[in-house]
């Protein structure tokens, strides 16, 4: 079993739709949770970062972490064609040795104008 599971999609939505992206994980030591956006043939860029459980909002984006269920989500409101990309969840544990991120496979999103 992979440490981080993510539905690869692809996911296609009309412009203006609400998008929900999700990941599950198995390692209860994970404390830091991130969402990266990756455009075609580019490196991942950090979109959202959350520590432990709870919600975080930044403009049209909301990240949720439910540590009890080992489940994280990213919501995109009023989706735009420019949001079309692959979204990768990533997470890491806390403390010494927790120096690398564990990524999901990424969900490919297309927002249709």
């Amino acid at each position, binding site marked *: 079993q992979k440490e*981080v599971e*993510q539905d*690869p999609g692809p996911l296609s939505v009309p412009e203006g739709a609400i998008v929900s992206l999700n990941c599950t994980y198995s390692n209860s030591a994970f*404390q*830091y949770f*991130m969402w*990266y956006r990756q455009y075609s*043939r*580019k*490196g*991942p*860029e*950090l979109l959202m*970062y959350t*520590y432990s459980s709870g919600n975080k909002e930044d403009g049209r984006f909301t990240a949720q972490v439910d540590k009890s269920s080992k489940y994280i989500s990213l919501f995109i409101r009023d989706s735009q064609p420019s949001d079309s990309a692959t979204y*990768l969840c*990533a997470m*890491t544990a*806390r*403390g010494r*040795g*927790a*120096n*690398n*991120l*564990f*990524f*999901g*496979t*990424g969900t490919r999103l297309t927002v249709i104008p």
Partner: protein
Amino acid sequence: GAGVSQTPSNKVTEKGKYVELRCDPISGHTALYWYRQSLGQGPEFLIYFQGTGAADDSGLPNDRFFAVRPEGSVSTLKIQRTERGDSAMYLCASSLGTSGANVLTFGAGSRLTVL
């Protein structure tokens, strides 16, 4: 520099050849990471440097892979006797490396194709 710079952006080589991929991290970032991303997959950790030393190389797949960071800034990932299965995007990232948050900034990657 303003961001993480990786060269070359694309590398095509033949099976059995030697390859070097270079990473120039953000100025002042002490931590540097190499990841490998295969098509349709998320990045997978290869190696992490704190300063000049490799603090964690547990992700290197075998002894054909080696990385150095001699002056604590630029890093080179070296692959010997390349195999077709080595074809992937090789991503470099850097961070301040001073907390457990590990917020990494990635470069655009070096796409390696082994024929």
